[in-house]
């Protein structure tokens, strides 16, 4: 059999070639290079399926492909660090490859409708960006060590900057792109320090294998091994927590978690297909994927886990409340993304590794669906995104409506759509682990509270957009969309309905049916995988124990599911009552002062700006210090040295006899000094 893993680099390189082709020859190609991108991502998708099939066939792959520094331990620093590129294919990365390539493929197809048919200019640049974006994310997914992951993580950030700022001639997009770049870079700064700390501590940054840093950390904490370095007498556990939190900085930035989430709503300035790609499969997913990738490291430090869970739960609720009052379609979706990634972080922090990956999967499909659906609506509405100008689109664009509805039901967590299963499992994990852990329980409660809020804003959006009477002329006569929009919507719509089936844990537990928790078994290396990277292993070394409410495991499952479904329906019902009428009106005024707070996103942007200015003040102080004292010293040194230099210059008088004299005196001085110290003259 041909080895599928030999083609893993091709998965990454195909979109990269499409980037090169679009960049170099895009303007000579039909559709600005779109077909190259579609062909490349389709090829990557097929290869990913093949790779996943190979993993299902019981194999895995962890191979260093290229040493770019220090091969064979020759040389860098005292710890013989090797810097490498490699490929790690295990169930997690194989699954992620399929998700990313599928979403990227659909986004490429959709772009034909959204960009080409709308007569956008600069298409080669657009498709080049998409290709590089996809390639970077795929490189990140298959990375076998933290440094390589970091490099591709940065590339992802760069591509998002380029694509968000695609319409760079308008005022909004460049500013949003800059903001996305700077805010995520702020987090990445900590990540970079974390990478260096990992290298310094373990001498390696490999994710998998017996010599990987999670394995070394585990051994060191057990007392059966040791690490190369910890800073000045710091307790090992404390130091590992610090390292974990440093890396988490990058995650919080990229996955738009509180308090670094502010870039993401602004990033809506980018073209809608790009938003779909960012939110579903690439940029934002990268953060959560990174935590899952090095989960074996995070579970070792309970504090980090609790921090992850709490940030996640808080972000889930916090972002959901801001989504309540937004008027623009994509803004609502943006806040929902932040909120949903909060759920994933909550799951990861709560020890629900499988639940997080499950939600990552389902969310990738239904969020891509919702964004592409929103894109379809935006095409129809001639790029007017204000939901108050829509209404009644249901009968005029049925394919968009029904697929969008499927995505919304999934997002709101309504049985039996995909989002219900994954969100339910997250809350279940948080609950059973949280009964012994107050911080985690807090995370759970916030996650639970976010459920009705999510359902409410989701259906507020659906009703305002598609139901009732049209509220503008364009809504009465929307522009039709073509196959290249409907096709991707249909594919994703189907997936949003059925993806939940891959992991029917509650059904299994309640009915006692064995073997329908496919994702659990997949991530537990039941078919194939790498030792030390299984969900079982993580549970074994993790800090949590389970506790149950009344009725043991089954009872807890049922109670948990009933509560979350009930709350979701409550939110849905409220939205129905308020907005599913012929001509809905704004109800936000009833919120009073809260409304302004929510409209302004809790004034967090203002806070960040204020902080920036205060930093500037501090910087001003530092500047004064710098100018006065540091520069004073430096200027002093330089003026002294310039004066000294002037003297030296005078030494060079041009008179040879002086040279000879100085030369001789210098030699004699040297002779005397050495002779005196060496005792030659005695």
């Amino acid at each position, binding site marked *: 059999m041909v080895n599928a893993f030999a083609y893993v680099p091709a998965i990454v390189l195909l979109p990269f070639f499409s980037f090169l082709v679009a960049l170099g020859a895009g303007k000579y190609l039909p559709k600005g290079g779109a077909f190259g991108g579609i062909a490349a991502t389709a090829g990557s998708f097929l290869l990913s399926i093949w790779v996943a099939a190979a993993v299902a066939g019981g194999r895995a792959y962890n191979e260093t492909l290229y040493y770019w520094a220090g091969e064979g331990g020759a040389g860098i620093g005292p710890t013989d660090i090797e810097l490498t590129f490699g490929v790690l294919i295990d169930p997690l990365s194989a699954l992620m490859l399929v998700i990313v390539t599928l979403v990227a493929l659909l986004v490429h197809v959709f772009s034909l409708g959204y960009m080409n048919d709308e007569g956008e200019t600069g298409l080669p640049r657009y498709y080049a960006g998409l290709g590089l974006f996809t390639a970077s994310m795929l490189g990140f997914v298959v990375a076998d060590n933290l440094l390589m992951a970091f490099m591709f993580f940065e590339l992802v950030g760069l591509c998002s900057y380029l694509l968000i700022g695609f319409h760079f001639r308008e005022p909004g997009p460049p500013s949003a792109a800059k903001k996305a770049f700077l805010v995520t870079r702020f987090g990445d700064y900590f990540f970079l320090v974390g990478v260096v700390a990992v290298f310094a501590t373990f001498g390696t940054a490999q994710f998998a294998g017996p010599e990987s840093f999670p394995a070394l950390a585990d051994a060191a904490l057990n007392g059966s091994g040791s690490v190369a370095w910890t800073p000045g007498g710091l307790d090992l556990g404390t130091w590992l927590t610090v390292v974990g939190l440093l890396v988490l900085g990058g995650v919080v930035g990229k996955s738009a978690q509180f308090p670094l989430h502010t870039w993401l709503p602004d990033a809506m300035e980018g073209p809608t297909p790009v938003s779909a790609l960012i939110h579903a499969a690439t940029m934002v997913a990268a953060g959560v994927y990174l935590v899952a990738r090095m989960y074996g490291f995070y579970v070792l430090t309970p504090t980090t886990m609790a921090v992850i869970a709490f940030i996640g739960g808080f972000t889930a609720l916090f972002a959901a409340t801001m989504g309540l009052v937004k008027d623009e379609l994509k803004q609502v979706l943006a806040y929902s993304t932040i909120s949903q990634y909060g759920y994933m972080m909550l799951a990861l922090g709560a020890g629900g590794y499988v639940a997080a990956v499950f939600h990552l999967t389902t969310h990738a499909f239904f969020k891509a669906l919702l964004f592409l659906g929103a894109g379809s609506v935006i095409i129809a509405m001639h790029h007017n995104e204000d939901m108050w100008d829509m209404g009644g689109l249901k009968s005029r664009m049925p394919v968009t409506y029904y697929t969008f509805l499927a995505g919304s039901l999934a997002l709101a967590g309504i049985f039996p759509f995909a989002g219900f299963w994954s969100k339910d499992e997250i809350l279940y994990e948080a609950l059973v682990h949280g009964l012994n852990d107050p911080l985690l329980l807090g995370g759970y409660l916030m996650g639970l509270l976010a459920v009705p809020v999510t359902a409410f804003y989701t259906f507020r959006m659906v009703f305002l957009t598609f139901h009732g009477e049209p509220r503008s002329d364009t809504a009465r006569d929307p522009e039709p969309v073509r196959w290249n929009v409907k096709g991707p919507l249909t594919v994703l719509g189907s997936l949003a309905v059925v993806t939940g089936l891959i992991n029917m844990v509650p059904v299994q537990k309640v009915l006692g049916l064995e073997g329908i928790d496919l994702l659990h078994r997949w991530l537990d290396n039941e078919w194939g995988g790498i030792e030390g990277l299984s969900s079982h292993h993580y549970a074994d070394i993790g800090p949590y124990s389970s506790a149950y409410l009344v009725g043991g495991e089954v009872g807890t499952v049922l109670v948990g599911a009933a509560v979350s479904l009930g709350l979701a329906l409550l939110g849905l019902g409220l939205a129905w009552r308020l907005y599913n009428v012929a001509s809905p009106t704004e109800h936000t005024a009833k919120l009073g002062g809260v409304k302004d707070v929510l409209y302004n996103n809790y004034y967090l942007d203002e806070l960040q700006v204020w902080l920036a200015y205060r930093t500037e003040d501090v910087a001003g102080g530092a500047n004064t210090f710098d100018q006065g004292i540091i520069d004073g010293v430096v200027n002093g040194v330089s003026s002294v040295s310039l004066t000294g230099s*002037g003297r030296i*210059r005078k030494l060079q008088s041009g008179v040879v006899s002086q040279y000879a004299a100085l*030369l*001789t005196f210098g*030699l004699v001085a*040297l002779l005397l*000094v*050495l*002779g005196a110290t060496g005792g030659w*003259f005695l």
Partner: protein
Amino acid sequence: MVNALPQVAALLPVLLLGFTGLALLLVDTISPDERSNTSMAAVSALGALASLAATVWFVASGTGSVDTGGAITLFADAIKVDTMALFFTAIFASVTALVVVAANDYFHDHANPAAFYSLVTFAATGMALLAVANSLAVVFVALEMVSLPSYVLVAYLKHNRGSVEAGLKYFLVGALSSAIFLFGISLVYAATGSLILADIASAPVEGLAGVLGVGVVMMIGGVAFKTASVPFHFWAPEAYEGAPAPVSAFLSSASKAAGFVVAFRVFTEAFPLELAASANIDWMFAFAVLAAVTMTLGNFAAAVQEEVKRMLAYSSIGHAGYALIGVAALTVDGPANGTVMGAAMAHLLVYGFMNTGAFLFVAMAERWGVGKTFADYAGLWRRAPVASVAMAVFMFSLAGLPPFAGFFSKYFLFQAAIDNGFLWLAGLGAVNSVVSLYYYSRVVKALFLDDPASPSALDTIDVRPTALYAAVVFAAVATVLLLPGFGPVIETAEAAASALF
């Protein structure tokens, strides 16, 4: 394969250079009035490249290295071919090739360019001979063989007052230094009764340690003259400034490296570290003092120069200070003795390319007739973008900025010095590097950021000196390529240096 050749074949690189010089001289003698500038340049470049090829072949095949039977000695131990000798020969041959190619354009209107090529080639022969010298007699003869053509070369522009004056000063200081060096050799001979390096090391010196010590210090003086180290540096700024720019390139790169090969070989072999310790002849300390003073004085003086060529002259003094760390940061049984000297050798190789390139850029500016000062270079990149980029590469590499080769060689040098316990020397080197960044970046600023003094200031650039361009670009490419290729270079250098301890 090499073993099948007679032992004397190990001198092939030296012989190739020597015969090239003779051939050039012969042609010039037969038809002295023929102005065959280009063919002479081509012949001498081919000779230098052939010598370089032979050297690289020998290094690759392991001639004289420890792995293949050790150094090859010839003529009653007067000559010794080992990897270090070949390493330095590679530097000399490369610089010679670059300089003669560039000279083809530089001397386009010179009345009699032919002698230039034979003089350069003979000087290079002397350097290559210096690298293989294993006896103080050979060292001195070879040193003179380098010096005498150099004096003539500096004064080669006969009708230019600056050139002639510089040549005369160089000669006078050189004569004094040679005398000191020779006197040192005689004292060493008096104390030990031998001129062969290994025999000097093994000779008993009871009671005569003082005589030997004075001799050693005087020999240090001779080395310091050749490497343009303080206080024997006075000739350097004037000679480099007055000489034709290709000659300055040759002297400041190749001739300086020739001085270092003497320092590296003679002192470690004739006066090994153990002897220096037992007889209280602390020549390492003397070199440490010279290194500290030289790098400081060179860099600080370079900072206040107004003319680019003179700045480069002082910067070249500063770099001599860095390279001196290779013989200064040594201790008995030091863990990094081989590493620090190897790093200094690698630095000299890198320096050979970047410094030669920088002087050749000056040669190009002189060929164009733009002025000498920083201000005269303003805005040059508009008319000569490729050369300006190359110059920026040289400047940043000289300053030791990544990602250029100069960064790595300096980094390894300072790192090895620290490993050997000479933190103060490495620290001083780092401070000096910071100072150097100031004046190197002034050149880049002038080239790229400043506006020309007048719109017509650049109109003098009306020719494209192809050969000069080729040499400058080649040096720049080498400076950049030595970054990925630095691994083999530093390994060869460290292996060669370790063989001495």
